[in-house]
């Protein structure tokens, strides 16, 4: 089968339909989780963000073709992930850095 075949187009149409359905389901799941009467707010947030991460993974893997991408692209992404984790880690570290001893005010 040549690359210019309309069969490829049909195959992609089916694949895209499945990806779109998955993203819509993920989105509705996020909304449902945010309205669900979950007593623990942290669990509700974790559920919503997990659904968002699943949605993002589907988009990145199938629409951005990361599922079969070259090593070079993954190298770029690996650096990005390291810096992104560093950025978020610094934020969390800074938010936990609360002074426990208050120095007396001297005039």
């Amino acid at each position, binding site marked *: 089968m040549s690359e210019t075949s309309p069969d490829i187009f049909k195959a992609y149409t089916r694949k895209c339909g499945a990806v779109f359905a998955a993203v819509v389901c993920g*989105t509705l799941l996020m909304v449902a989780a*945010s309205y669900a009467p979950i007593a623990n707010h942290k669990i509700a947030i974790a559920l919503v963000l997990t659904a968002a991460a699943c949605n993002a993974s589907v988009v*990145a893997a199938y*629409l*951005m073709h990361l599922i079969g991408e070259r090593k070079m692209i993954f190298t770029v992404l690996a650096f990005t992930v390291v810096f*992104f984790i560093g950025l978020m880690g610094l934020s969390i570290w800074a938010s936990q850095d609360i002074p426990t001893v208050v120095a007396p005010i001297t005039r």
Partner: protein
Amino acid sequence: MDIPYTVEARPDTGVYNAKVGMWLFLASEVMLFGGLFSSYILLRVGAPAGTWPSGLLSVPLGTINTIILALSAITTLMAWVACKSRMFERFKLFQGLTILLAIIFLCVKSYEYRDKLTHYEVVLKSGEIADGHLIRREPSGDIVLHGHVVKEHAELMNGRKHVEHRELTIAKDQIVRMQNYGPWHNTFLAIYFTMSGLHALHILGGLVVMGYLWGPGSRMWKTDPDRFTNRVEVSGLFWHFVDLVWIFLFPTLYLI
């Protein structure tokens, strides 16, 4: 002089140059939005209990926009597949649909912004707070709101709580302070307008590029279809990234 590796893959990277360039650009974009997300986390975690508003934004509109953007991500991929399959008319159709969906997204976003900018919080002399959408200003200076009155500011923190709204006429001399729900209103709205505004600018940028490829830029199809296909792929990568950012913005700003 020909620019090398616009179509064929570079031997050392395995991909054509524009694709590497786009991924490097997207990596820098991850850090840009990552900085804003970390600011959001710091501001939210640092806010005193009960002062961070929730449910201020319309979840149905946000959901509709999420689905519109997801659909546009599909159509932009189909536009590229149409180029790969040498179906130029199909490319025109799918690229046109992507542009249309992007415009609809921006229209919904503009409506949401307008809704916030016409939503007022009015502190009255009695100490009560009137909250609602401005219907009109009378020539006398009195204002007419469609909303409700609360005794404490804390009662306005949960936007999801159903409250009966009615038309309120407020005399000018009863108003102590009046402010709309713009980015200056509180920290949440400041970060909401910053993040969603930056995202909307990305949509606008993508719209310009895709519009060019759909219109005058499509002339390249006749002279160099492979290079044109790669241009469509690279613009599609950017568009998918914009969709990815929204996938995280939507729950962060609208749901949690």
